[in-house]
């Protein structure tokens, strides 16, 4: 399905944990984590998968309108998400549920969106996690502008003789998105202003039904070269590598070294969304091959083999995530529908003559039914 240049065993692929759970060292990406941290990464991965599975189930039950599953992309998201600092700002697509989780955004907020209760509705400032962006690629420009703002803030602080904390933005997008003008303009702006931003492309091999070769004929991480900043391909199913590579890219951004592009080489194990039918366009053998590279299995194998975690730990995690899923379901079912007047709220910050008039007329109209 994918073009030749895109096999996962690319010499340039950064990998710290093989699919078999073997720990590798990489000269550019040293990573030392405590046992506890490693176990927590495992817990993260298992938890987000469980919540994702539950969200799919809720959709099948008709509780959500649609769900874009992150199945298979847990490591890419947890790895990069756990590299973030509190002052950093994330600009997600519509699939970064695990990054949202890393930023402390309650999963229920995402369910609200896909249930149609609102269009996103959380406060990006509270979580350092911007609103989901559905139109492909648009958020990369917002992220770049935000990074330009961070840079300007830092300069202003420096001019006042104080030391600025180096914050950075992390912009997520898919392989399909790399074809959009906006994404390439974001590359231009980020490069020209040397903005503190990391572009994180989850190459899950598919944009709905279109394989990677409809978007590019060379590996995507090389796109960055054309704009004058570094690009790196990381095993997107390797949570350690994703963590290390993202950390380093964020560090670069924080210290004034400018933008970089990360291509997390992974696979969309599920349908594009719950309304999609991938059997129409892709072969199951591709899926089977990728199953062997599961992002969670390798961490479990590593933890088991090295004795960093035992059966009790794994069971404890399983119980915990099962409970979390049950809780999520209950919370989802309890979500109230918005009242009609919600339609008129939040469009403008200042009073708006027309909208007030329309709302008043609508209320009169509704009142007519009670007469």
């Amino acid at each position, binding site marked *: 399905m994918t073009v030749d240049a895109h096999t996962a065993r690319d010499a340039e692929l950064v990998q710290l944990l093989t699919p078999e759970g073997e720990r590798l060292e990489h000269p550019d990406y040293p990573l030392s984590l405590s046992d506890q941290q490693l176990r927590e990464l495992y817990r993260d991965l298992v938890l987000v998968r469980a919540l994702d599975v539950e969200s799919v189930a809720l959709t099948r039950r008709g509780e959500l309108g649609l769900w874009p599953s992150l199945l298979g992309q847990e490591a890419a998201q947890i790895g990069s998400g756990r590299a973030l600092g509190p002052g950093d700002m994330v600009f997600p697509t519509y699939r970064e549920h695990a990054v949202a989780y890393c930023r402390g955004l309650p999963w229920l907020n995402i369910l609200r969106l896909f249930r*149609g209760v609102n269009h996103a509705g959380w406060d990006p400032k509270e979580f350092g996690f911007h609103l989901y962006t559905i139109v492909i690629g648009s958020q990369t420009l917002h992220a770049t502008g935000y990074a330009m703002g961070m840079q300007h803030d830092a300069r202003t602080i420096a001019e006042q003789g104080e030391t600025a904390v180096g914050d950075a933005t992390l912009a997520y997008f898919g392989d399909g998105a790399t074809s959009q003008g906006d994404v390439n303009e974001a590359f231009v702006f980020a490069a020209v202003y040397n903005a503190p931003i990391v572009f994180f492309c989850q190459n899950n091999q598919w944009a709905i039904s279109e394989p990677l070769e409809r978007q590019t004929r060379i590996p995507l991480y090389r796109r960055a070269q054309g704009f004058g900043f570094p690009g790196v391909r990381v095993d997107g199913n390797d949570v350690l590598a994703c963590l290390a590579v993202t950390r380093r890219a964020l560090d670069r951004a924080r210290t004034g070294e400018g933008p970089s592009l990360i291509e997390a080489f992974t696979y969309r194990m599920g349908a594009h969304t719950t309304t999609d039918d991938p059997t129409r366009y892709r072969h199951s053998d591709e899926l089977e091959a990728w199953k062997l590279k599961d992002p969670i299995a390798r961490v479990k194998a590593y933890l088991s083999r090295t004795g960093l975690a035992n059966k009790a730990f794994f069971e404890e995690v399983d119980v915990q995530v099962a409970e979390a899923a049950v809780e999520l379901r209950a919370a989802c079912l309890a979500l109230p529908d918005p009242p009609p007047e919600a339609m008129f709220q939040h*469009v403008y910050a200042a009073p708006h003559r027309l909208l007030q008039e*329309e709302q008043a007329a609508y209320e009169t109209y509704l009142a007519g039914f009670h007469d």
Partner: protein
Amino acid sequence: MTEVTAPQAPSREVGAQTLTLAKALNAGLRRAMEDDPKVVLMGEDIGKLGGVFRVTDGLQRDFGEGRVIDTPLAESGIVGTAIGMALRGYRPVCEIQFDGFVFPAADQIITQLAKMRLRSLGSVNLPVVVRIPCGGGIGAVEHHSESPEAYFAHTAGLRVVACSNPVDAYWMIQQAIACPDPVIFFEPKRRYWDKALVDPDVPAAPMGDALVVREGTDATLLAYGPMVKTCLEAAEADDRSLEVVDLRSLSPLDTEVLYASVRKTGRCVVVHEAPVFGGLGGEIAARITEACFYHLEAPVLRVGGFATPYPASRLEDHYLPDLDRILDAVDRTCAW
């Protein structure tokens, strides 16, 4: 949607068939491609997947990847390269996956597609069709339920049409493809599953014509695309004698048909899903008022979306014009 095996029909051989609106479009595209080897389809996921609404189902299999082109994910690129293909003598039909995704292509549509013929003093024609599934009512997330027709209707150099039923879908898509001018072709996505008997031997009216789809004497309901059915239902449900006109062509308007109806009824309500403010309803109301001033018993009223972005789907039933809101407007115009 159920799967069908080729031939997808109706072709001239197969004769009349009951088809959904989506299948009727598929059949119309197929026939246009059979009739003219220069017709090519371009868009995201239109190949193996057959488009997210399956409108192009089976066409890549039957006409090949050269004529049913899965494109990179870039709407400006789709329309921009379609213009280039048209300059080379092709008749590209672009699919925009959802209404809200047409805006990245706005520049190519408004500044290039619409204006190139004039720029060339007529030496260049751009027979490009841009298909846009539009409107709400399917419980979708943001950007999947919009009605951007007013933007294109205000853009000189384009023709804008909207089909409302399977028969028109089958014929109008072929007429749009045959048209030497660029056509923005709106498809009412929540009507994709509506069915009707489509006869490949009985052509529909030209796409430029408005049609009276229900006769009446007390007031005229003007609508297009998804709202035609809603208006017909409202008319059925009401005791008054309501005439319903399907505009079909939004730019240019077939004004004589509208004027004739309003001169007869003296009252008019225009209905569309797009926000009323700055929507096509204002244009229609202004024109009718000018042309039928002394016939009007009441001002032309408008029922449409509010001055807000399309709301979250749990609110869309409040937002979308429905029988009650339409008949409320009829009440108001009759009581004027």
